[in-house]
C-alpha cells in the first residue's frame, strides 16, 4: 500500500519484493549449481594474484572474485584494483615493437 502511495508521488525506486526474490535466487543458484566451495574460490584468487603480480602491483585486499549470471551462461568476474604497472613490463613491450 505504501508503495502505491510512493508511486503516486513518482517514487518507484524500490523494486517489488518478488523481483528482489528472483534476482537473489538467480545469484544463489549459480553458486549452488556450480558447487564450488569457498576454499576453491580462494585458491583461484591466490593463483590469479600470483599471475597478475608479475606484471602489476595490485591491491590484494580489495580484490573481489565472483560468479555471475550472464545471459544463460556463467561468468567468473574478477575485480582487481591495480596500483601500478611494473616498469619492466612496459619496457619488455617496447622491446617487442
Amino acid at each position: 500500500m505504501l508503495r502505491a502511495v510512493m508511486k503516486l508521488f513518482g517514487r518507484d525506486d524500490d523494486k517489488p519484493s518478488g523481483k528482489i526474490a528472483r534476482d537473489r535466487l538467480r545469484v544463489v543458484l549459480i553458486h549452488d549449481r556450480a558447487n564450488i566451495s569457498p576454499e576453491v574460490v580462494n585458491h583461484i584468487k591466490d593463483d590469479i594474484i600470483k599471475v597478475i603480480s608479475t606484471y602489476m602491483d595490485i591491491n590484494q585486499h580489495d580484490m573481489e572474485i565472483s560468479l555471475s549470471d550472464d545471459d544463460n551462461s556463467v561468468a567468473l568476474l574478477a575485480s582487481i584494483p591495480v596500483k601500478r604497472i611494473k616498469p619492466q613490463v612496459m619496457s619488455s613491450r617496447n622491446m617487442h615493437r
Partner: protein
Amino acid sequence: MSDVIVVTSGKGGVGKTTTTANLGVGLAKRGNKVALIDTDTGLRNLDLLLGLENRIMYDLVDVATGRISYKKALVRHKKHETLFLLPTSQIRDKTAVTGQQLIDICNEMRGEFDYILIDCPAGIEQGFKTAIAAADYAIVVTMPEVAAVRDADKIIGELNRADKDRIKLVVNRIRSHMVDSGDMLDMDDINDILAIDCIGQVPDDEMVVTSTNRGEPVISNKKSLAGQAYNNIVGRICGEQIPFLDLRKKTLFDKLKQILHV
C-alpha cells in the same frame, strides 16, 4: 504396466503429501487403479489426509522385510474403490526401507496398478534416495518463495544425478493477490529459474485445510479453486492439454487500483 511417480520437493511443508493425496483421488476417479505409497517413515501423514488412519494393519516396513505380501498391507479407500494406500511405519525411521526394496515392491505391484504414486519425505538423505529409486518420473512440488525454489533446484540436480531426468513441476500455495502486487515470485520467474516443464499451479486455498480436517482431499470439492487446479494436473498426467487456471480473483479494490494505475 504402470507409471511410478515420485512426489518430492526437498523442503518440508510445501505440499507433497497434499499433492499425492489429491492426485491419487483424481486418478482413481477417472477409473484408474492407483496405489499410493507413503515413504515418510516415522512421520506418516498420507493416511490422515485420505481418512484411512484407523484401518492400517501392516506397513511398508513389513512388506520390505518380506514379512507379508504387499497385498496384505494395502488399505482400500472406502469411497474411491480403485484407490489403495500402502502406509509406512510410524515407529521406525528412514533407514528401515532401502531403495532396492522399494524397487522390488514397485516391480511386483506394477502389473496390478495403472499408477503408483510415492510420497517422498523432506530432505535429500536416505529417505529421499529410497523414495526416488523406483520412480519412472518425478513431480517436484515447490512454493513461490526463495527457500522452496532453491530447494527445488537442488532436488532437480539430485534427480538428474540419479538419472531421473523426467521431471515435472507443481507450484503450490500461490497467493494471487501477492503475485499481482509484485510481492511474490511469479510463474514466469520460477519457470525461468528452474527450467523444467510445469504441470500445475495450485492456489493457496483454505479449503485445503478444511478438507484435510475431514480426511477428504480437496479435489472432490467442486467449489475449491485448489481442487480444480489439482483436477487439471490429473488431466495433464493423463495426457490432456489443459490451460492453466486464472488464479486472480478481482476484488473491487483491485479494479479501483487498475483504474488508478497503481
